[in-house]
């Protein structure tokens, strides 16, 4: 079943944003894709949305409020606690991966430099969270 709940992409790098959006669209997903370009903006978007997104694709390296802090605040908020969050980042640092899961990330995906791999990864992510995964109502 296709859910029409939106996907929130938190990404400050416009190149990555463009490539990610392009990859997601390759699957013909109909879901609205909201883009926040900083941690603060992501929190604002969540605050203002009456219906929560089906997934948050969260980059770690963000200005002002870094990705892990955004994740911590989401998990600390009663309304957002069960919101699926996928860390989509360039870092393969063990420290980041460990801390991400510690804070309650649902998944940790390293953006491949290889374009084919990147497209495949992102499109599968979109498909999984927007289509296959059954979110909490």
């Amino acid at each position, binding site marked *: 079943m296709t859910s029409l709940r939106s996907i929130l992409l938190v990404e400050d*790098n416009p*190149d*990555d944003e463009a*490539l990610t959006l*392009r990859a997601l669209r390759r699957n013909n997903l109909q879901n609205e894709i909201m883009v926040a370009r900083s941690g603060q903006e992501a929190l604002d978007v969540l605050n203002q949305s009456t219906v929560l997104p089906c997934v948050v694709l969260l980059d*770690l*390296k963000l200005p002002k409020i870094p990705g892990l802090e955004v994740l911590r605040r989401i998990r600390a908020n009663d309304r957002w606690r069960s919101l699926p969050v996928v860390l989509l*980042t*360039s*870092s*393969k*640092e063990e420290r980041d991966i460990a801390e991400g899961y510690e804070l309650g990330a649902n998944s940790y995906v390293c*953006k*491949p*430099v*290889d*374009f*084919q791999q*990147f*497209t495949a990864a992102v499109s599968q992510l979109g498909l999984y969270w927007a289509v296959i995964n059954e979110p909490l109502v």
Partner: protein
Amino acid sequence: MKLVSSPSALETSVNLTLPSLQSAVVRVFTVVTPATTVLDAIALMATSSTSSKDFLASEKCDLNHVWVIDQDHILGVLTVSDVVRLSANPVALQQLSLRQVLSPPQAVLLESALADRFITADLLKSPPVAPIAVVDSQQHLTGMITRESIWAAIAATQTTSSPPSGTQLAPQHPVDRPEASPERSRLSTPWVEKIFDTILAGYWDWAIPDNHEYLSPGFKRMFGYADHELPNAPETWQNLIFPEDLPIVMTSFERHVASHGQEPFNNEVRYHHKSGATIWVNCVGRVVDWDEQGQPLRMIGCHIDITQRKQAELEMQQAKEELENFFLVALDLLCIADVQGYFRRVNRAWETILGYRPTDLEGQSFLDFVHPDDLEATVNAIAQLHKQEAVQSFVNRYRCRDGSYRYIEWYSQPKGELIYAAARDITAQRELEMKLRQREAHLKTAQRIAGLGSWEFDLATGKITWSEEVFAILGRDPTLGPPSYEELLTLYHPDDQEYHDHVVQEAVRIQQPYDLDLRACHPDGSLVYVQARGEPIFNASGKLVQLVGTLLDITERKQSEAQLLQTSAQLAASNDELEAFAYSVSHDLRAPLRAIEGFSQALLEDYDDRFDDMARVYFDRICTNVQRMNDLINDLLALSRVSRSEMTYTQVNLSELAAEQIAELRTIAPARQVELVVPSQVKAWGDASLLRIVISNLVQNAWKFTQHHPTARIELGQCDRNGSPTYFIRDDGAGFDMAHVDMLFGVFQRLHNMSEFPGTGVGLATVKRIVHRHGGEVWAEGAIEQGATIYFTLPTAP
């Protein structure tokens, strides 16, 4: 006493009728030359008194004096008193000459002076003790005046009014005394007896043929008896004399007789006193009458009480024996030497200490035994003794009988020609002192080298004692001596003074050791760090009496500690920077790559029809380079992770790691013929994940550089170099030129081009980094087309 007491009575009578001094002059007397022996002179007194009875009766004469005249010159006079004195003298009379024993006359009067009334009065008032010589104008002796002759003259004027005449000269006793026996009359010279009595001597007179023997009252009194208590007979003294001494007297008498008087009769024998005490008597006598056959007819003599002298002699003998005993038993070396430096006497200690018997030394020169190096000092000491100055605590080395030397300390006292010395063997003490001095020097040196001082603090007196090094550490002038406790506090940094005081007070209170670091301020303003340690010391009754401790200069340590802290901080900062750098690389360098790659692909996909083949080739090149850049970044990150990761040492089996890596590579390229030679248990001590990276890199390299050979051999092994476990991985591949060996381990350094052997040039740099982190070393050996061997060492397992 009786004689002396008379003059007061006399004085009155003399005043009434003054006798002429002429009447007191004795005109007959005995004269001898100085060559006469003393014995003969004494004999003359006695013989003249007995054999000249008739002569005596007719002439005023004197028998108690013998004048000694040398060619008309009056030398002196020998009196009965002298004889008595001589008989009490231990020196044998034979050894004395007349000159030695005679007394000078009390005075010499000219004949003409006899009429002088003043002289007469003077003499009558106080009669002379010794005789007065009367001489004529030629100084020839013409007469003599004695105390007795004056008495006689006075007595004559009192008993008869007529002037004394020569026929009336029987000497009279001035004081009445009961007579013991009729033999008394035989004594023609009562004065002698009087004198004997006075000096507590006794007189005897033995008529040998009829065996009568007169014993004077003094004789008897000497043994505690009154005159009448003992009969006048030889048995009397024979009963009183010690039985064992009787033969001495008898033998002496026989010899005297046998030698016709030449052999003197002179014995010192013991008598029993009435009280039971022992009386020593000097018994001197002489046969004075002989018959024609040479048999003795009469013998006279005297007894002199020499008990006191004998007692003194005995005591002296005892004292001498005591001294002798001390001399013999003394443990110290005792000797008597002369100032010329020759031994006279030594005691037995010389044998026990130095090995010499007294006979070895006596007569030898003292200096012959002195160590050559001490000779000069010893000669100087002897010179001092020559000046009659005592020498004390003089030490020299003295040769033993066995040739070794011992240290001897001398105390010497000169006395005239002799040196009395006591000495002591102080070799052991010396050696101990030397050892002690040596230890002190060692300790001082050790303290100086270690920068460690020692101190003591006496709690009762507050006295502080410092070793030299403490002065040096705290920068205090040693001539000032150690400070008081209060002053000590001021030597420390103001911020540390209270702390130090507190710690010391607390240590004393709880009686426990303490250990603290302090800063001390030198007078020049410099600061030193010290570690002060103290321990309580208790006396026998468990009372805390002292603190003793050390002071260690830890300035250098403190400085290096500070430096180390600084370095550590710098290192931590570098690590943080490295971390931040790596983090940034992994994010920020990848994003543009992704964009380049991504948009290139987007171009190809979205505008596919507009690109010709050449354009596609260019896009491929872009992608290849992006991929390569990505590999470089990944390898760099791996390298940085190697430097940053925490290490955990365990036992690691390198054989297994190599086998796993080869297996992995074989799955990728199963067609390759590669032989792996690995002993089953090559084990190392290190961080497992880092060592895995080392083995992976090295095996991958070996795999890679053998890829152009149809078959290959890769070997893992272990050898030992300089004690550290050394490992190697060897291949038989492309190898390298040893000229470039230095480049092998540099980051991004490559010896082959990409088309030959792909790679980033980070692998060996990573290996080197890991081995260094383990404290090991890594190096390579190889030759072109002859393979390469990479060696590395790791620490020994604990």
